[in-house]
């Protein structure tokens, strides 16, 4: 199971890194979003994998590590905020510059 989990995280990471390296803003934003999923899975797994051990007192005898869960929970919400911010930045950039290229244009006014 551990192998399967880590391979999945690796594949997700690889796919999102590929997207992040694209030259248009939208795939980059999608890449960031997917990367945040992969990162969340990774962080979550630092508490190791447990089945049937939800950290609700009184329901089980062995509990999964609650601390990474708490951290990842906020990370998911913050990740949403970041996705939202970057996607709207992308829309705004397109509105201002007229293109969704992420590289500086030589002729355009999109100076730094």
């Amino acid at each position: 199971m551990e192998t399967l989990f880590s391979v999945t995280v690796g594949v997700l990471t690889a796919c999102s890194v590929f997207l992040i390296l694209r030259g248009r803003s939208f795939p980059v934003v999608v890449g960031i979003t997917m990367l945040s999923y992969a990162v969340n899975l990774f962080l979550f797994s630092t508490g190791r994998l447990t089945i049937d051990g939800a950290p609700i007192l009184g329901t089980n005898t062995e509990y999964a590590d609650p601390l990474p869960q708490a951290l990842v929970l906020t990370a998911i919400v913050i990740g949403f905020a970041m996705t939202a911010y970057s996607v709207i930045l992308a829309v705004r950039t397109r509105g201002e510059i007229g293109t969704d290229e992420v590289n500086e244009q030589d002729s355009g006014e999109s100076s730094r």
Partner: protein
Amino acid sequence: MNLFYIVFAPMIGALIPLLLRRTSRPVKTIATIAIPISCILVAWPLAQQTLAGDIPTAIQQWLPNIDFDLAFRLDGLSLLFVSLILGIGVLIVLYAHYYLSSKDNDSRFYACLLLFMSSMLGIVTADNVLLMWAFWELTSISSFLLIGYWYHQSDARRGARMALATTGAGGLALLAGLLIIGHIAGSYQLDAIFAAKDAIQAHSLYIPALILVLLGAFTKSAQFPFQFWLPHAMAAPTPVSAYLHSATMVKAGIFLLARMHPALAGTEFWFITVTLIGLITMLVGAYFALLKHDLKGLLAFSTVSHLGLICMLLGIGSQAAVIAALFHVINHACFKAGLFMTAGIIDHEAGTRDMRKLQGLLKFMPITATLAMIVTASMAGVPPFNGFMSKELFLDQALNQHLFGGLSWFVPVLATVGAALSVAYSIRFIHDVFFNGGYKELPKQPHDPPKMMALPVLILSLMCIIIGLLPMLTVSGILNQAVSSVVLDNITVKLALWHGFNLPLLMSAVAIVGGIVIYSQRDQLFTFNRQFEGQDAKHNFERIVQSICDSANKLFTYIDTGSLQRYMALVLISVIVLVIPQLFEIVTLEGSREQLPVDFVSIVGASVLMVAGFATAVLHRHRFIMLMMLSVVGLVVSLSFAHFSAPDLAMTQLVVEVVSIILMVLALFFMPQKTARASTGHRVFRDILIASLIGGIVATLNYGILTSDFETISDFFIANAKTGGGGTNVVNVILVDFRGFDTLGEITVLAIAAAGIHKLLNKLKPFMPSSDIDGRPWHRIKHPLMLTNVANLILPMAMVVAVYIFLRGHNLPGGGFIAGLIAASAMILQYIANGVDWVKERFNVNYQSLMSFGVMIAALTGVGSWFFDRPFLTSWFTYLKWPLVGKFEFATALLFDLGVFLTVIGATMMILSNFGKMTTRHRPRQEGN
């Protein structure tokens, strides 16, 4: 405490002229001058103690763990410099009052001057070398402001920059040196360093430390080969030059040599370096002083020369040499301040300081001429003025040193040459300006200055005479203590104008005659020097600075190409390069932890996840499909959280997934629907390679972590969740109780992101497609009936669920984050189904206020615990009996969670509803709504 006043009153007082900006200049001048005068009054009783042999100190702990205290002392050496800084400072302010034109910003000038005064006072009274260094840097900065006071002139800016670069670099060297010394001595307090003299000098790092400290001193004091910055600092207003050259700034380097003398001097290296550098500087300075046509340029190089003289004396380091050095510090301050003020008066009243244009001013400016002659005679070392006495002492020391064995004779010879040059440029200063034939046409009709403007010069020239005639009455007391604090011994100074017929007197005579001869032959010297012109220190300095800037620019343009793709690739490649060698170090990756068996559900889930991930990446040019694939990824991630015992995460992920996909679909409306094929095969191959390597690294690391055993710190949370936090859902208790402060931070971040998005949407001119990608116009029915009905049905149910999830959160999966997201997504559905207008009519809530309100509730809950004398965010809970409901738990954590709940709703709705409004007529059009 009084010592603190002396140092910090000018610093705080620097605000006074700024506050009095709108008043007239006399008011500002009086207010400014009152500050150093008050310092003098405060220093007076302390000075009596110092003169009696005590050392007043004051200490205030600051950063005790690095031995950095606000420690001040007023020993003899400090007192000598404090008197000069304050005394001449008063005269400078008075002089500046008349010197500055009505167009100059006098408030800024006075403020900078006071700041500078304060930093100089800090250097000379600091009892801790780190503190001394801090003030040292402050003088660099404040002198930069003063030299660049007329910042509209390019040479002022350049001079200021050069001074800052040179003395700033020296300051860094000094810091390194002081750190080494402090490290050896085990303390940064002066007394401890003095006591550790032998340990310091025996240490293998003594030479490097000494070189670093000397670099600091030599750059500040403009010693060879760093003399170049001082003449360019002439671009400053004359009062600044007068102050910088007489009592402050350049004297800081001399002060440093004297201050560190007890700890560093006495070795062969010190003797040879300091003496030789001083000697060379003295000669070089004197030579160039003679060649300058600018009055201030002449004086600047003469300062360089005289500082070299003092430096050389400190290098010799015998008791008599130290006496001569410190005595000359006083004398030089008196005559040099006077000379600069004279030069300023001539410039002010005649309109030029070029000696080739000035001549015969005696009849127009008799008072100025008389005063100038007195101070110049003192500089030249003519009896009976004070300069003569210290020069005699200097020549005597030059004769009596035996540092260079059989070659020691060259020191007195060169000293006499230097003295002769000094006489020559002094004569030039007087003769060229006030005599040398009749009056020539000048930019202004010259005349004597206002009496009060000449007053400071009068006082200084009187000082020159009185100290010269009555040295024992005037300066011997302060010199006794000053020299004592340098040689760490109680000594009594004996000064007299007349030492009888001896060799130094003969040398003085030779110097005066030689000076007259040199002056009369000056034309040949000018002709000789013309061959070397064009090699200006300024150009060399600028060239070096320019080449450093150029190479920095080149590097910058190489790295910063403006391509995000390139940056990302560089960052990722560096990650690969840095991490892979570390992975090689791991012998066995697999840990000893018992692994879970693979079950069928997991295989299906993982396969779907991987396929969807691949599809997202591969189909990235069909953006809508890519988004659908992304939503599959998010969904399966949520399921895997559920599978691996994290119900809270699963719920959060699920709702966030919904909200973010809606957001992205909305964004896609404004974006191109497809991506053109832009990347070359080459590029794609490179990206696949990087992506696979990164993915491989992450998978490896994750596998390593997952299979190894670990000690969790969560047992504490599990054990205390119920008893301490009053809840059984440990994750929620961590969020709202144990780590409540983190959560508070996180909802604040969320709120800030939402506010940022709100701002980004302002004045946004989105690209609005009128048809879909295939050219079909949008459907005219904007709100389909089915969706509207379903949405209306769902809303109340979703709200009930949200409240339920919220309330049970403390004990069962749920809580503010999840409940907030559920409520928000139900609201968003309303927007989608019925449109902005419809929602606005029925539910007009300002999401911004809601969000701020949420953060406020959370923060106030935390503050609430202060009223019960508990730390921030301590939670409290009790059980209430409600009719019908029964036993009900109430925890303040629930209140905190309410804050979270409201913030999440507010932020999410603010992001989505504002963005959604972009497609409607409610689009914000103006800044600030």
